[in-house]
């Protein structure tokens, strides 16, 4: 491969990778940021709506068994709906700031503000989603030690609805983690 000393030097110069301009990478990161923010907003919105409209009424009435189930019956699921709504509104409100970051890629303090608020919202969303997941697990399996009965056997479609609404929330959590990481990479690159 080596033909000689001089040829070797020019080969090295020719094969040096052309550095990608910093502005280009930052702009790609900002566009990706905007896209992921929209995805997360849609995820939390879908979760909040799916949980909020979950309702089932059993077609018969017995004396001791409750025959109607709504998300309001469990305060943890109410907290889940509220947390998802708050995070959805926050993500929609942060879209203009994200657009500003595409145009003005040198912004630093506004990215830090975005990181802080993203972290706080991610904490809120994670707490709500994992609390709801614990309740949904109890609804599926119950707990024999504490005599907590698994009501999924009675309320099938309600159970399916509340289980499925967790998915959008967890997707939004992953997206928020990616957003925080991307914003911090963008800060450290300038």
């Amino acid at each position: 491969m080596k033909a000689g000393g001089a040829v070797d030097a020019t080969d090295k110069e020719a094969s040096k990778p052309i550095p990608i301009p910093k502005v280009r990478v930052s702009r790609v990161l900002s566009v990706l940021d905007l896209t992921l923010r929209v995805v997360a907003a849609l995820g939390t919105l879908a979760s909040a709506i799916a949980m909020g409209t979950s309702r089932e009424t059993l077609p018969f009435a017995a004396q001791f068994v409750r025959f109607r189930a709504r998300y309001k019956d469990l305060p943890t699921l109410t907290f889940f709906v509220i947390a998802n709504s708050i995070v959805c509104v926050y993500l929609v409100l942060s879209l203009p700031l994200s657009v500003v970051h595409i145009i003005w890629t040198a912004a630093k303090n506004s990215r830090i503000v975005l990181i802080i608020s993203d972290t706080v919202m991610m904490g809120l969303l994670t707490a709500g989603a994992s609390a709801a997941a614990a309740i949904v697990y109890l609804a599926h399996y119950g707990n024999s030690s504490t005599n907590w009965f698994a009501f999924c056997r009675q309320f099938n479609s309600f159970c399916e609805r509340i289980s499925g609404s967790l998915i959008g929330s967890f997707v939004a959590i992953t997206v928020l983690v990616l957003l925080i990481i991307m914003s911090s990479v963008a800060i450290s690159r300038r």
Partner: protein
Amino acid sequence: MKSGDSTTIDVPHHEASGGAASKGKGAILTVPARQEKGGMRRGMAIIDLVLRIGAIVAALAAAATMGTSDQNLPFFTQFFQFEASYDDMPSFQFFLIAMSLVAGYLVLSVPFSIVSIVRPHASGIRLLLLILDVVALTLATSAAGAATAIVYLAHNGNSSSNWLAICNQFGDFCQTVSGAVVASFVTVVTFMFLILLSAVALRKH
């Protein structure tokens, strides 16, 4: 530490390529600014280390409190169970495992924090710590949230699904578990401050 090290060590100059035009006036004038920025970053790295040690204590306290929360009631009958421990609930098992993982990660990240005190201009380490901190924050928050849901049920029960509040029987167990959840939330808040510190320290002017 000798402050002269920050000017003599061969750290790659990320600022030099972008700011060469602005620094063209005089290299002598910009050296104190770099030293001052290094000093500020070093201060933030020291606060980072202190917060990290605090978070280790909180996470270990949460895991230990949850792990040793057993209660046996002093009487028994034929049909009812009169002992409660974290084993009975999968959410508490998850809480214990997750808080132990978080405590282990924090202990392993202390050397990285010390390195970022010694070299205040190395931003790669800070970025790595920030990314891993975000992942650990998610883990800690989800453990705390799941345990809180169960503790809330244990305190208040739920009339719609006929779930009885077990705190009326197992008072000590309930208190211990609630204390563990509080400690885990302290860890979560500390993580948020750590992430904030790393993000502010990553800026380059």
